């Protein structure tokens, strides 16, 4: 094996790890919503880019620094999620055809968001500045500082989220509502309030993921759909409602995508995602870490 091959491979794997961790955090918002109300959030694309555009707006429009812009955007996304839950989801889940109705509603909302953003911000590509400019160099392997910060940030964030769900009363109440809503009620959990919070949280996480992805790549009104579809595949691949599954699947898909992009071409990426998705659905539809349940 030539040394070039090894270097290329290592670089590809590293960038795969990076993409993978971004995909993983992208899938988290979907996982939370799927876990609590069993709906696939088809407005996810719109919500991710909204997070990115809000940050852009605070950065360039209002002149705040990056951290403040990100925090403000996440707070606004949280409120957005709350309003979405109270304003629409509450009604949708009560309908007899709630599954398809929520899919269509959220799709419509996604279009709405994409086009409103298009109106307000225009179609030109926007950039969220890279956090750091330099790069580490280990021999021939080159890692951007930015990438490292992203990976570390995602890891810390995921850890924090895990602690939230396992150690805090609020986090546990969200899990309770997701697992058995009547059981949650009889122990005194206010199901509606908890669900609203979960939505807000999912929305904020989604917005955050959008910001991170935008900082690594770019931001246009259309790019949300791609992120969303990949997010769906990751959620199913990893197992519905499991955070561990989403992380793992995200990393795997990131690596796969990096390998295909480098050794094949960009155009093979989506067919690969499709084939993997089809195989998972036919072989193990509950996903890697998911529970086999009657609903499959």
């Amino acid at each position, binding site marked *: 094996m030539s040394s070039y091959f090894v270097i290329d491979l290592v670089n590809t794997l590293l960038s795969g790890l990076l993409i993978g961790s971004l995909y993983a955090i992208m899938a988290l918002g979907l996982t939370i919503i799927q876990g609590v109300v069993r709906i*696939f959030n088809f407005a996810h694309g719109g919500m991710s880019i909204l997070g990115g555009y809000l940050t852009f707006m605070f950065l360039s429009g209002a002149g705040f620094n990056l951290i403040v812009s990100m925090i403000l955007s996440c707070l606004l996304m949280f409120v957005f999620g709350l309003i979405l839950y109270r304003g*629409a989801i509450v*009604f*949708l889940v009560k*309908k007899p*055809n709630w*599954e*398809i*109705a929520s*899919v*269509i*509603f959220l*799709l*419509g*909302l*996604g*279009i*709405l*968001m*994409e*086009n*409103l953003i*298009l*109106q307000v911000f225009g179609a030109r590509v926007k950039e969220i500045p890279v956090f750091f400019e330099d790069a580490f160099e280990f021999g021939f392997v080159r890692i951007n500082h930015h990438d490292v910060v992203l990976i570390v940030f995602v890891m810390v964030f995921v850890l924090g989220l895990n602690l939230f769900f396992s150690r805090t009363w609020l986090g546990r109440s969200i899990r309770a509502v997701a697992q058995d809503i009547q059981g949650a009620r009889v122990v005194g959990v206010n199901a509606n309030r908890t669900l609203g919070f979960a939505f807000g949280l999912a929305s904020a996480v989604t917005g955050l993921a959008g910001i991170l992805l935008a900082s690594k790549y770019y931001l246009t009104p*259309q790019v949300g*759909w*791609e992120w969303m*579809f990949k997010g*769906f*595949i990751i959620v*199913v691949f990893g197992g519905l409602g499991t955070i561990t599954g989403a992380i793992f699947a995200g990393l795997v898909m990131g690596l796969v995508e990096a390998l295909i992009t480098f050794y094949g*071409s960009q*155009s*093979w*990426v*989506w*067919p690969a*995602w*499709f084939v993997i*998705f*089809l195989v998972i*659905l*036919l072989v193990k*539809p509950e996903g890697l870490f998911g529970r086999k349940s009657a*609903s*499959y």
Partner: protein
Amino acid sequence: MQALWNWKKMTVLGGLIIIALMPVFTRSPYIRHLFSVFFIWAIVVSNWNLIMGYAGIWSMANVAFLVIGCYSSALLSMHSGLPPAICILLSGLITMLIATLFIGLPSLRLRGIYIALLSMIFANMLPDILKIFRYSTGGSMGLPEVPPLYEGITTLQSYYINFAAFIVLLLLVYAIIHSRSGLAFMALRDAHEMATALGISEYREKLKVFALSSFSTGIAGGLYVHYTGIASPDLLYISTFLMAIAMMVVGGMGRFPGGVLGAALFVFGGEWLRMFGLVRLTIMGGLICIFILFFPGGIMELVERLDTRIIQWRSKGLAPPVVE
């Protein structure tokens, strides 16, 4: 039920007559083109309605099937010696095969939402497949010189051919709904165990409907590509897909005229809305949201409610008070 027959069927008949005589009133090629676009979309959305509303398969890939029909017919007519009319029929078959293989068969094993996801990603990957085989398919540029249905065809002739296809394929949809298969689906929907105990095979019925619908959609694609002379992946943009959904939801999911109504609304209404530019898509998104929340049966549901009102209004004062 007298009222029911009269005003609804009259509207349909009247509409058909107007469409048939339209070229007499205006020679504008633009209007004729608009109608042809309407015919194609009416076919696509009605067949989609059949799959979603009746067979209960949440396939989101019907626009993709249209495009597969376009490209198959275009490539066949350009590389084999066959006349375009035959190519159109063959493209219907090819579309049916691909659709059934990738979406139809998996749908038998998977829950609705997974089919929705699978089909969406199928539609999403199609432009990339076209790019991979760009030497044949022209990649993102498409194929610009697709031969017309026959040499020297005029806009008037195209108009009537498309109109004829519209009528034939919609009659096919109508026939399926009112056939034993249609009844089978209603039985499966209302009393699942009983229906299967009676020997109605859900798998067979679903596959039949899926195959026929994708065949029709493929044919519509073939017709479209020879009419416009261009095969382009632009139809695969998300905006087209969303417009098709809007047509189905606003027209009325699960109700036969819903597809036609929705197509009419968005093709003709869309032209009017084009004045507003990009707001068009925003309005579409908004309409989808509002309708699915408040009028899940679309405009057809409102029509049916209106119908009931008319019947009640007509029979008021005619029938004696009913004794409890």
